[in-house]
């Protein structure tokens, strides 16, 4: 009862459980502008989906959730299309480059080790920085914020770059080189780590591109949508790992969750959103660190995934 067979995963799953998982991840996606792959893929593996199928089908459902989230945020005026497209172009360039880097890394041997360590350290550092920063700004919300000296240097550097343009939705003016550069950087990192990169892109947009948090969420979802369309197609075409049945059950939940999440996010302040996302990222980092320190129950695992 309530079980559906997944032909590509080669296993059956409880529909209500998968629908619920999709709903939960969609909710996070709508609130924070992340794809949620870093949460959903390990959970799907835990429920008996092969790692490669879990990652690919997750990308397919993110297409649905991020469409739903982008539409919701667009209605709220939170999508900076100009910025999103520039980040996307950079992301595609970086992704292509990152795939080549990973090939070289794999040849040198210790690739898995390097990737896992980089992933955990990055999650920890970003989570911690965001947490502290948003905690401080929540505490001094009434006091006018004085920009630290380091940041003003960075701001001066930003102003010196050529091809300055206005990003009206974000209310900022900067060179198009910056979103292209950071988009490429996130693209490289997410290709190496095998993740969508939402949790990297959000802090980059907040701290390095200095966009307002609500516009960050909407624009990140817009950018993730296109990245995941590309990943879904490539995985289906090259590796035949997209389980459409799994993706549909997930996205029925996640598209609904994304709508609810977008409306919930609207009620929260930028700093509150940041501190919640930081806590989530830190939680995942701690969980991964525990996995690294505790001996696994089974010493063998199927190929694919982290």
């Amino acid at each position, binding site marked *: 009862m309530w079980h559906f067979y997944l032909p590509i995963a080669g296993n059956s799953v409880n529909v209500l459980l998968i629908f619920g998982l999709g709903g939960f991840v969609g909710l996070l996606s709508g609130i924070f502008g992340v794809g949620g792959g870093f949460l959903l893929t390990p959970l799907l593996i835990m429920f008996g989906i092969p790692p490669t199928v879990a990652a690919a089908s997750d990308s397919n459902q993110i297409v649905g959730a991020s469409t739903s989230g982008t539409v919701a945020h667009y209605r709220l005026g939170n999508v900076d299309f100009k910025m999103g497209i520039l980040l996307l172009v950079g992301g595609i360039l970086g992704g292509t480059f990152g795939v080549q880097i990973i090939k070289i890394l794999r040849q040198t041997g210790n690739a898995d080790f390097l990737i896992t360590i980089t992933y955990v350290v990055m999650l920890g550092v970003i989570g911690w920085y965001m947490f502290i920063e948003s905690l401080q700004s929540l505490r001094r919300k009434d006091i006018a914020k004085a920009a630290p000296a380091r940041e003003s240097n960075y701001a001066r550097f930003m102003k010196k770059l050529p091809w300055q343009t206005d990003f009206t939705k974000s209310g900022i003016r900067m060179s198009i080189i910056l979103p292209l550069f950071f988009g490429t950087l996130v693209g490289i990192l997410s290709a190496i780590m095998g993740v969508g990169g939402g949790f990297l892109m959000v802090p980059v947009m907040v701290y390095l591109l200095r966009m307002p948090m609500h516009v960050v969420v909407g624009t990140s979802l817009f950018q993730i949508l296109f990245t995941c369309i590309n990943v879904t197609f490539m995985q289906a075409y090259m590796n035949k790992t997209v389980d459409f049945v799994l993706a549909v059950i997930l996205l029925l939940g996640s598209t*609904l969750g994304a709508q609810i999440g977008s409306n919930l996010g609207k009620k929260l302040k930028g700093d509150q959103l940041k501190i919640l996302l930081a806590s989530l990222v830190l939680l995942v980092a701690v969980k991964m660190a525990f996995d690294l320190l505790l001996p696994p129950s*089974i010493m063998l695992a199927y190929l694919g995934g982290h």
Partner: protein
Amino acid sequence: MLRKISLVLVFTLIGLICLPPGNDAAPLKLDLKPAEILIGTLYNGTTVSVTGEIPTTSDAVILLTGERGAVSLKKKGKALGLLWMNMGKVVLHNIPDVYLIYSSKSISDLSRSPEGTQMDLGLGFQSLEKQVTITSDAGEPEDNSELFAEFQKLKRSEDLYVSFENGVQFQPGDETFKQFSADIAIPPRLKKGQYEMTLFVIQDGAVIEKASRVLVVKEVGFPAFISFMAWEHSAIYGILAAAIAICAGLLMGFIFSKKVKK
């Protein structure tokens, strides 16, 4: 006279050929219900009921297994003496994807000869371990027993490696034969393909007879259609998967925009 003799000889020969075979040569009775497993949309594993007849003085082992091959897996190890992570790959050779073994007694009891010596029936996980070789990715030999035990854990967690000691039941029979039955639990992870259900008749620590039936597992309806599209038309499948996801997202956005307006 010679003609009469040759006619008698010919009829005797024909008679001998046409005679029903004696009890010793009677084929073992073995029936599977169902003999074909159909994977439909709501499939979540099934039960195959195995019935038949064996000599009254013997025991039965039923084994469901498939073709053997090599499988590559990631091996976990300690990096820097502290962190558990994937440390290279290992390859298990001559390994079946599924091994469901149901018996009327434990395999070690069944493989004991009347003199009390342990014989190798070629059945069960201990025996399977001896038939498997494990190497590193580069082909160097690895610790068989340790890694096989881990592989068993992995497969047991998927219900694909199962041993059930009291899995075969007997009904009282006559002096020569008794009937047996076993309900084999087929896990949902058993892939489509062709498998072999074999009955081993065991007596005095040896296999005295065996019989096999083919068990076909195939997808039908929606799962079959999805598999066909994913494997045979992967480009269209990829585009459709993304397009349907976008439509679902837009539809949900549309429904919610109506709600918001209301």
